[in-house]
């Protein structure tokens, strides 16, 4: 899977004239009155549409990213506004906030939103939380737990942005143990954990060896 870029795709080619006008007026208003985003952000999807733009972004998410990047705020003030949008957002708004995090100058301040999404049980939010922002900011132990949660929730590990960069010996050990548990229960081991485990051959104990040989 192509990794998401650090800019949102331009929604404009997917917008009709009224939608373009709406988005232009909305970003201009937010630039001069940041509080206006509280009513405009929820309305973006029905004004701009929700078709898919690429593997990572829908039109509404890209339009909402444009609204967020129009906020004339920085640091704590920006984090507070973004947190409010997430806290009061419906699932589509929350996905849009999570997708836009790497575009915003937030440092670690948005980690509580990522953690909230990872605790939940909406797979679409868990996936959106595990983008480039999580790759850059989530502490090792939390990143490993998040990957393991994806395995349990049947989210394909190919959808986890930073997996190759952040996989480590401890994560491979956890996945190998998970495989052991599955085999002992007479259940299948998901294919997508194999490459991660194989990259750290030292974690493969004798009892799971057969599950990680190349031909399996």
């Amino acid at each position, binding site marked *: 899977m192509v990794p998401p870029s650090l800019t949102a795709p331009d929604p404009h080619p997917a917008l009709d004239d009224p939608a373009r006008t709406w988005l232009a007026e909305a970003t201009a208003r937010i630039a001069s009155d940041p509080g206006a985003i*509280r*009513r*405009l*952000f*929820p*309305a973006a*999807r*029905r004004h701009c549409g929700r078709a898919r733009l690429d593997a990572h972004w829908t039109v509404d998410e890209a339009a909402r990213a444009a609204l967020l990047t129009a906020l004339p705020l920085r640091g704590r003030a920006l984090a507070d506004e973004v947190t409010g949008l997430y*806290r*009061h957002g*419906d*699932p*589509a708004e929350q996905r849009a906030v999570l997708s836009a995090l790497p575009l915003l100058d937030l440092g670690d301040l948005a980690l509580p939103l990522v953690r909230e999404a990872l605790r*939940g*049980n*909406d797979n679409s939010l868990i996936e959106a939380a595990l983008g480039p922002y999580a790759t850059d900011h989530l502490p090792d132990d939390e990143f490993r737990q998040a990957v*393991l*949660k994806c395995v*349990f*929730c049947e989210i394909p590990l190919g959808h986890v942005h930073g997996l190759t960069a952040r996989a480590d010996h401890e994560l491979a050990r956890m996945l190998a143990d998970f495989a052991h548990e599955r085999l002992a229960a007479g259940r299948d081991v998901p294919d997508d954990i194999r490459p991660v485990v194989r990259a750290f051959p030292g974690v493969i104990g004798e009892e799971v060896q057969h599950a990680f040989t190349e031909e399996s």
Partner: protein
Amino acid sequence: MRIFDPHIHMTSRTTDDYEAMYAAGVRAVVEPAFWLGQPRTSPESFYDYFDGLLGWEPYRAAQFGIQHFCTIALNPKEANDPRCIPVLDELDRYLAKDRVVAVGEIGYDSMTPEEDEALARQLQLAVEHGLPALVHTPHRDKAAGTKRTLDVVRESGIAPELVVLDHLNELTVGMVLDSGCWAGFSIYPRTKMSEDRMVEILKGHGTERVLVNSAADWGRSDPLKTRRTADAMLAAGFDDDTVDQVLWRSPVAFYGQSGRLELDEPKPDEETTFEGNSIRRGGA
């Protein structure tokens, strides 16, 4: 038969109810924000509730083949609790959501000055957001309360066709239909209205601008009352098209005025088993 229940509190119902409703023909519901039985003590409790109406509940309903929309408001009972009033300041951001198809339930419970204030302010919000309003009529002193509600609706300047007055009975239906507002009926065991009385009202007042709902909630109520009413209508000689008008096309027309009712229109004769997944538990 396809049924749209325009007023039902699914948060209080089980997955068995969703299954039974689907089998009875229910394909879409509107869940109005209301009192939970247990008083809320802060605006934050409302936000969590609204989030549930916009997130978890539509997700749960979809697994059973039912489309779920909601209405958002501070309810009349809790409009009297100063700890809850600040929720009015945050309604703006919730009323802008995609699945919010009206402001509601608003209206009177005990007809206090606090309820006056909350009702007028929330009718104003409906006007600002271009949304319909779902207005509950009081259970005590109903006729006087309904008259007073109609006065406040008139003063607010909202178009009467954007307003439904709910929980009506034989004594209040006439004045509501005369006002140009929609007339809502909650078919609720033992109180409010029965399906046979409902049929008599439809015979006497016609089937235009009438909404029939189950208002099923955490009390003794029945989420299949919409279907029972449809059956009673057929038994009384109404034809299939009139039943479809009252139980599908009318609620679609009323909430459709929001411009946000993004509905998959089922065929009236669709089969009655939904091959859905069992509810996801998020086992991890």
